[in-house]
Structure formats: C-alpha cells, structure tokens
C-alpha cells in the first residue's frame, strides 16, 4: 500500500478505460461501462481525502521518475492545496457528463467516450504535473480530444469553431514552450551543455533578474509568455472570442467539460506557475490583469445580456465569471486568491450545470432561441426549479456557492485596487440582469411557440436527468453554506503562497509519508478510544 502510486492511478485510469472501450466490439454497452468507469475513477480520487494532509502546504503524494533526462524532462507529479479541489472537480464532473450525455450523443458513441476519457487523463495530468514540460505535454494533449469532440459531435459550424479553438490555444502555448525551455537553461549549471531540469520546485528556487522599468528583463518576458498561454486558455478579455464559438458548436458534454475544467487549466497555470515563478513581474504588471479581469467581467456580462442564443449567453457569462477569477488571482492577497480558487470550482459546477440544462431543453425542442421560448415554468416545473437554483448560484446569491467566491474575490480586489474593485462590483448587477432577463423570457410570460407546440408536448425532466443534476444542486448549497469544509483543504497552501510570494518554495511528501501519517492517526484514535473506555471503566 505504501507504494501505491495513487496520483498516477487517478490520472491514467481514464486512459486505460478509454483503451478498453476502444477495444469493445460495438457501440452497445459502451454507456453503462463508461458510467461505471467514471464512477470508479471518481471513487478512487476520493482516496485523496484519506491520504492528503490539509495541514501542510507541502506537495504531497509525490511521484518522481526520470523520463527524458537528455532533455531534462522528468515524470514528476504531486498534489497540494491548489490542485486538490481541481482534481476532484475533474473526476467528479466525468460521471455527471457521461450520464448527462446519455441521449445527447447519438452517433459514434464509443469514439465519443474514448475521446472523453482520454481528455480526462490529459486534464488531470495537467493539474498534477510538477514538471513544466510534462505539464505542457498534458496541456497541449488536452486540445486533441476536445478538438475531435467539438469537430465531430458539434453543430453546424463545428469545423470553424474547433479549428479556431485549436489554433488560438496552440498559438498561445507555443510561446510558453519557449519560455519553459529558457527557464530550463536558466536553471542549468553553467558547466557542460544540456538541460538542467524542468522540475517546477527547482525552478521556484531560481531568481530571475527583473528590472522594474524594463519590459525587456527576462522575468518580464517570461511572465508575458506564460501569461499569454494561460490568458488565452482562461479565456481572458480580449482573447476570449474562441470560447463562444466553441461552446455554441460543442455538444453538451463538450461544453460542460470545456467550461467545467479546461478553462481552469488557464487560471490554475497562473496560480501554480506565473505568480510563484515571476513574483516581481506579477507584482509589477499585475494591474494589467486586474484591469482586464474587471473589464472582462463587465464586458462579458453586457454582451451576454444581448445574446439571442441561450448557450451563447451562458458562454459569455463564462467570460464574465472567469474575469472574476483573474481579478481574484491578481488581487495578490489571500482573500482574492482563495476566492479565485473557490470561484473556479463554482464556475465548474454552476456553468457546467447550466450547459447541462441548456442541453436538456435543446434535446426536447432542438432550438436555443430565447425568443421561441416563454412560459416554460408552467410546463416544466421541476426543470424550472433546478434551472432557477443554478441561476441563483450563477448570479452569486448568498447561501449558494457563487456568493462565497464572488464575495472573497471582490473583497480581495477591492483591498488591492479600489477602482478595479468598484468596476468589478458592477458585474454583480449586470450578472443579475442578464441571467434574470433570460430567465424571465424563457420561463415566464405567455407560452412561446416551442412551448405551446401541441404536436410535440414537452416532458419534464426524467429520473436520469434529475439524477444528473442532483449532485450539482447539493454542491451548490453545500459550498454556499459551509465554505470552510472546502476552504480548509486549500488554506495552508494559499497562505503559504501569499506569505512568501517572493521566495516561494515547496516541500515534498511522498505516498509513504502519507501512509505513515494515516497509520499514525489511526493509532492515535485507537489509543484515545482505549483511554476513554478505560476511563469509563474507572468511572464505573
């Protein structure tokens, strides 16, 4: 047990399942197997709760093997408070997506699930990778399955959308690749040719020269190279235009994964790499991202307001929400950072849920035109209630998860820059405007043409669909009512990051340490239990 490579298991399990599915004879039986597989990998990922120690900021469950030493690349993975929840979010969303796409995907079912599971591995990998090149590999690799998911199972303009998505993101990341290489050489010992390492922990240690005035100082350039890649992935205004297209064309599960997890890879990159590795540059140029984040919030909200297509509206709302995340990250204080991490999860849950819901209604009416709806509330009460709850979470009403994230982010950004905070706060208003306006037009008022259509009456959510939404709804309230349950797992890491921004370093704990600790705690418990029993005996 002590040697169990838990993280590798979590990361590569989906890939193995993908291979198994690929070997299956036909499409039949794929869905159940996929569901079981996804639940299984979620279950395994829950083991993290057992072996992960929230008390220490150190990197945990670390696995390190040399991979391509000639290029200084190693297989080095680990988890800490920053990636902990993102991993669980990813593994949690997979079963939801599989169950949610039960009817949405009607052709090439097997191929679809293979792509989906391969994508899962890529995404998980990029969250645990602690070797820059390894990270880059997963980061880029995740494009390929998504490229196929959008391109094959997407809508009418899917090819345009998927090419745009692929080229945009790749264009961003190649510069990061060069930056990574530069870092590897910067970190190498001057003696002899070749690379030293892409090990992130080592790269944290190296202090790159930074001259406040100079845009040309290495740290600044690297900072921008990395930021370009991540900003496009996030996507941050003004490089967001690939997102609405991709979302509108993507099939429902594609949208869910894209919004739910893939966008987080960008923001995660900022927190994991940009801030700790280029602290001065981040301090010095952070205002740019504060500003763009704030603008993105308002811009996304305003543009979302006037969308005629529900899905596109949700897509632009993503731009707005990710603007919050960027704002929180570059507020550069504990509140903002915590809020940002929290908002990543919120966005994954609420926007994912929104896309699922949009997909459910699309399956019924084959239209996403807001104008054609109206009066749905009378026809689909359960659907309406669930949609409303998700809407509340999306516009950050208190007691839902959205509020916690937004509150902390706004608090942090306001402490960082009153102006930006003030601009961002208006997003609270516009958010309510576009969501509620859409809600009113779709669910209230007289019945629209699609709703009153006698030929195909609409049926309320099936048991399966309710089952899909249930866990999301539960999370919405759980995360909203007791945020501490979730924050406590990332607290130490965030504090550690914020307290030593300028000299950030991470300790390392392996699986063995974790197992030892677990054993110890169990022992303790048993001991105390014994003690209490004996006391009880004495008392008696």
């Amino acid at each position: 047990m002590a040697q169990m490579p838990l993280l590798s298991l979590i990361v590569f399990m989906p890939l193995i399942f993908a291979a198994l599915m690929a070997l299956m004879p036909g499409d039949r039986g794929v869905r159940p197997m996929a569901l079981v597989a996804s639940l299984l990998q979620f279950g395994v990922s829950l083991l993290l709760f057992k072996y992960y120690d929230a008390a220490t900021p150190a990197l945990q469950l670390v696995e390190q093997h040399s991979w391509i030493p000639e290029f200084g690349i190693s297989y080095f993975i680990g988890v800490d408070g920053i990636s902990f929840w993102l991993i669980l979010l990813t593994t949690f969303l997979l079963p939801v997506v599989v169950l949610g796409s039960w009817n949405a995907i009607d052709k090439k079912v097997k191929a679809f699930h293979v792509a989906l599971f391969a994508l899962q591995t890529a995404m998980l990998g990029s969250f645990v990778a602690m070797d820059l090149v390894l990270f880059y590999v997963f980061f880029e690799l995740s494009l390929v399955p998504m490229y196929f998911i959008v391109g094959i199972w997407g809508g009418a303009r899917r090819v345009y959308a998927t090419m745009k998505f692929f080229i945009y993101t790749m264009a961003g990341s190649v510069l990061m690749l060069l930056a990574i290489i530069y870092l590897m050489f910067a970190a190498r010992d001057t003696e002899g040719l070749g690379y030293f390492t892409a090990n992130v922990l080592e790269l944290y240690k190296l202090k790159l020269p930074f001259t406040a005035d100079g845009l040309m100082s290495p740290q600044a350039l690297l900072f921008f190279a990395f930021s370009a890649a991540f900003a496009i992935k996030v996507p941050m205004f003004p490089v967001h235009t690939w997102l609405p297209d991709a979302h509108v064309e993507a099939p429902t599960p594609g949208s869910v994964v894209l919004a739910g997890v893939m966008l987080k890879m960008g923001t995660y990159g900022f927190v994991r790499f940009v801030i700790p590795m280029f602290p001065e540059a981040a301090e010095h140029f952070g205002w740019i991202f504060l500003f763009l984040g704030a603008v993105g919030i308002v811009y996304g909200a305003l543009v979302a307001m006037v969308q005629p297509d529900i899905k596109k509206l949700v897509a632009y709302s993503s731009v707005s929400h990710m603007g919050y995340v960027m704002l929180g990250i570059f507020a550069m204080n504990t509140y903002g950072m915590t809020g940002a991490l929290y908002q990543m999860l919120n966005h994954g849950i609420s926007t994912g849920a929104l896309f699922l819901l949009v997909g459910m209604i699309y399956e019924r009416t084959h239209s996403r035109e807001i104008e054609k709806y109206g009066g749905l509330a009378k026809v689909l009460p359960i659907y309406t209630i669930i949609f409303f709850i998700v809407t509340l979470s999306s516009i950050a009403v208190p007691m839902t998860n959205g509020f916690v994230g937004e509150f902390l982010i706004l608090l942090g950004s306001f402490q960082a820059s009153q102006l930006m905070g003030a601009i961002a706060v208006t997003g609270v208003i516009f958010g309510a405007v576009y969501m509620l306006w859409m809600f009113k037009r779709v669910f209230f008022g007289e019945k629209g043409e699609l709703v009153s259509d006698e030929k195909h009456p609409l049926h309320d959510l099936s048991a399966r669909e309710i089952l899909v939404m249930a866990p999301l709804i539960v999370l919405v309230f759980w995360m909203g009512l007791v945020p501490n349950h979730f924050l406590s797992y990332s607290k130490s890491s965030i504090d550690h990051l914020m307290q030593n921004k300028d000299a950030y370093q991470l300790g390392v704990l392996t699986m063995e340490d974790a197992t030892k600790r677990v054993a110890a705690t169990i022992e303790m418990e048993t001991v105390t239990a014994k003690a209490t029993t004996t006391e009880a005996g004495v008392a008696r």
Partner: protein
Amino acid sequence: MKPELIFSVLLLAPLVGFLFNGLRWQSKNYMLAGAVATGAAAVSFAMSVVAVSRLFGEGAPTSIEANFYNWAAMDLLSIDVSFVIDRISALMVLVVTGVGTLIHLFSVGYMSHDERPSKYFAYLNLFLFNMLLLILGDNLLMMFVGWEGVGLCSYLLIGFWFSDKEKAAAGMKAFVTNRIGDAGFLLGIFVIFGLFGSLNFAEIISKLGAFSVETGWTGPITLACLFLFIGATGKSAQVPLYVWLPDAMAGPTPVSALIHAATMVTAGVYMIVRLSPLFMLAPNAMAVVATIGAVTALMAAVIGLAQHDIKKVLAYSTVSQLGYMFLACGVGAFGAAMFHLVTHAFFKALMFLGSGSVIHGMHEEQDIRKMGGLKKYMPITHATFFIGWIAIIGIPPFAGFFSKDEILWFAFASERGSHWYWLAGLIGAATTAFYMTRLMALTFWGKSRFDAHKVHPHEAGPSMLIPLVVLAVLSAIGGFMGIPHVIGEILPGHPGNWLEHWLKGSIAAVPMTEAMKHATTMEWILMGISVSIAGLSAVTAFSFYVLDPSRPAKFVSLFPRLHRFVENKLMVDEFYGAQIIQPLVNASRALWAFVDVNIIDKATFVVGDIVRGVGSTARTLQTGNLQQYALYIALGAVAVLFYVLK
C-alpha cells in the same frame, strides 16, 4: 433554555415550514399549508418573545448571542454564523415575527382561491427566515446574506403569478434595482473591512474610538456610510431607487403588507440604526441621508396624490414614510427612526391588509375610482382602516402622531437638523393627510361607483379580520411606547419616553442644539402646527371628495399638464428607461457586434490573410518554368554574395 436552542428554533421554524410547503408545492390544500406556515411564524414569534424577555429585569444582559459555526476564515477575515438579540434587534424581531404571524394568518383567507397556496406559503416562510437572518446576524456578512435573501423572496413573491409578463417584469425590476443597492452595500462592507479588519458589529463599534469625526467627503468612513446608504436606498425604496416598490404591488396583497410595508423595506433604516455610531462620525453622509429622506418623503407623497390604484397609493405612502425614517436617521434621531419604523409597521400593515380585504371583497378590483361607499358593505374593514388612517395622518393620540412628531421635532431641533428638513416634513405630512383622506373617501365613503349587479362587496372571513383588528389596536396604542417628555410631564403619572430609555446606550444620538435643549414651548408650538396643518388638509380633502365630488375634476382642470405629470409618477420610469436602460442595451449590442466580431476576430483573420498572401505569392513565383527556377537560384546566390561581401 440555552441561547443556541432559542436561536435555532427561532430561525429554523420558518425554514422547516418552507421545506414542508416547498416539497409539496403543487398541493392545493391551503388550510394545511397555511396552518403549517402560520404555525411556523407563530413559533418563531413565541421564541422571540422568550428571547426578548431575557433582556428585561434587573441585571439582565443587554444582549444574548449564539455562535453556530465558522463560515470562512482567512488572514484577517473570520466570519462566524452567529446571531445576537440586543435592544435594537429585539424591537425588530418582535415586529417582524409578530406582524409576520398576523399576515400569515391573513393570507390563509386571502390565498384560499389561489391554485398554488403551498408555494405561496413556502415563499412567505422563506422570507421570514431570511428576514430573521438579516435582523439577528451579528456581522455585516450575515446581514448581507439575509439582505439578498429577502430580496430574492420579494422577487419570487412579486412574480408569484408569473404567467403575467407584467408581474414577472415587476419582480425582475425589484431584484435588479435591489442589486444596484446591494452592490453599494458590498462596497460599503469592503471599505469597512479595510478600515477595521472585521465585519462584526460589536468589534467595528468598539474600534470606532480610534477615529474622529470626518469633515470632508472622501474620508473612508464617509465613503463607507455613503456606500451603505446606497444599499439602503435600494432596499428601502428611496430616491433614486424607489421605482421598484410601486411595481412590487403586482404581488399578492399580504405580501405587499409584509414585505413592502412592514418589514423588508425597513431593513435599510435598521441597518443605519445598527451602525449609528459609525454614521455619527460622518456628518456629511448623514446630511445626504437626511436630504434624500426628505426629498423622498415629499416626492412620493406628491405622486401619491394622483394615483388611482388603491395599492399604488399605499405604496407611495410607504415610500414617503420610509423617507421620514431616513430623515430621522439623517438628523441623528435614530431612536425616532426606530419608533416610526415600528408604528409604521403597524398602521401600514393594517392598511395594506385592509386594502387586501377590500380587493378581496371587490373581486380583484383595485381602482378606487370604481369603489366608494364600501363602508356599509364591510364595516369592520372600514373601522380598522379608519384607525390606520388617523394613525398615519398623525392625529393624537394614535401611533403615527407620536413617531412622526418626534421626527419633525428632531429635524427642527437637532444639531444636524435644519428648518428646511422640518418644513419638508411638514409639507409631506400635510400631503399625506390629503391623499390618505382621498383614499378613505373614494374607497369607503360617498356613494358607490361600482355596478352593484356585477360586484357584491362582502366582508372577509375571520382569518382575515382578526389580523385587522389586532393591528388596529396596535396602531391605536402603539404610540405610547414613546411619549415625548413634554406630553409625559402633563400626563398623570408622568410616563417617560420608554423607547428612548430602552434604546439609550445601544444607539447613538445627536444632541439638541443648545437653544432647543429646553425649548418646550417651541416643541408644543411645532406640534400644534403640524397637527393642525394635517387636520386642515384632511378636512380639505374630505370636502373635495365627499362633500362635492365634482370639485377635484374642476380643480385639476386648472393645470391639466401638471396633473398628468403627477399622475404618470413624474415620468421617472420613462426617464430611466430612455436614459439608462435602453442606451445600455444598445451599447452592449454594439460591443458584441463591433468589438468581438469586427475588432478581435478581424485582427486574427488579418494574420491569416497575410499568411495566405505570402503563400499565393510563393505560388505565383512557381511558374513551372525551369529557367526561372535557375534564375531564382542565380539571383539568390548573387543576393547572398552581395550581402556577405558587402
């Protein structure tokens, strides 16, 4: 009983009611639903009585607290889910649960014919729960949670009959307008956190000692107060954000009584009173509060003059009365504000329920021009409404008189008051008396203007009458909790101003100007003026609408344009629509069509076109003529040589 238990029951009772009714939201069984909901409300009322009783007696604690769990903690920020009942929230919680219970009871009868009574009662309980959070939370965040929660419930209840686009729109308008205020509230919270590193009321106030009174406009405390006040204007329907409240009348009438008269809309006042020590340090902010309050009191009253919907009239009067409360806060008479808050809760709830009973009896008719002479059809309603009427126009010794007069007196005499505030209040009072009398007259007196064959007005059942009676009693005697000294001295037994005494210490207060400290005669004079003016305008109205109903028409025909202007609510909604909302929508369209499509995407496409251009030039060079290729080689060689040898 441990405080934790008290608070749990107090808060959870309505929540349980909500869950119970919410889970069977399709049931039509209004009796069961109503019983459960009313029971829940009653339970929390009982609990609050128990809790408040703890505060009485010798050596009683000034407050009881209960801390449940830690919501979030990082760096300086540590927010507990914890509640407190002190002398301020005690008043509030009693009013909310008490009046709330009555209104629940009223609703049982009122909603008996509705098709979704369970849903209605679920929402009502949910509202109660959120309102209690707002009141009892011991830190700004908990307050904000309730603050937005009640907003949400009001959204749900206004749009309760959502199939009607108008009603749904009204709900959305209410929520969005409130959100504008909430944004301000948030900013206020942030500034305060930046200042004190805490959001807990007690801590904030305890740290205030380190700060001195701010003179300028941009001081942090002034800023905080102004931001918070923006929140208050949203929630409590003050200029310029009051526009949602009249539309909110789209909801069921009991809702208007509970949310849009008695409880939720007073949250702004409550918040300012809670933070009164903070506001004391920002005189400019207080001046703004007072001015806005005065303006609102006047403006709403004027609009109320020319409304024809019974509920709209009451709505505008609510806005105007809230204006009085803010005026009081602004001049530093926080006690008076609380006082008026309580009395207003009584008589305005009473009048709304009364109007509900009227509408109920008139088969959903709301236009007072189609009423009249209802006195003989529904005597009890009339009687109770009558008490409400004299209470609001400030005829002693009814509740309104005491509270309003205290406000006017402070507006005149307080260090931060001014004659102008007083004058505004006075005119407002006169106007109020006029349009309230008009309402009485058009509704109950004179001869009936409805078609007696179609409409058969009838008195409502006991579940609706009991609340009316109780509230009538309260409106009649409610004022005695704050008898002014001048009156107290002449009364037998010299009753003191109990409310003032009760609140002393837990709220701040601005001292009187030296001149006014002992100017009892002055106080008498002002009292006399206001009462007589109010009475006068009431009489005028009576003469207008009862003695000679043709006179109003003649009167307005003198200046028709002005009348139309007032009738159309001073065109404020139209102004907002044309000047703010529409431009915003157009701007967004432009952003989408222009920035996204024409700038950002275009830019990327341009890159692609450049590459294509290079490609096609490369192809045109590729003529297939072998000698040209050779020529390219030669030229290339020459070029390279030239470059290398230069």
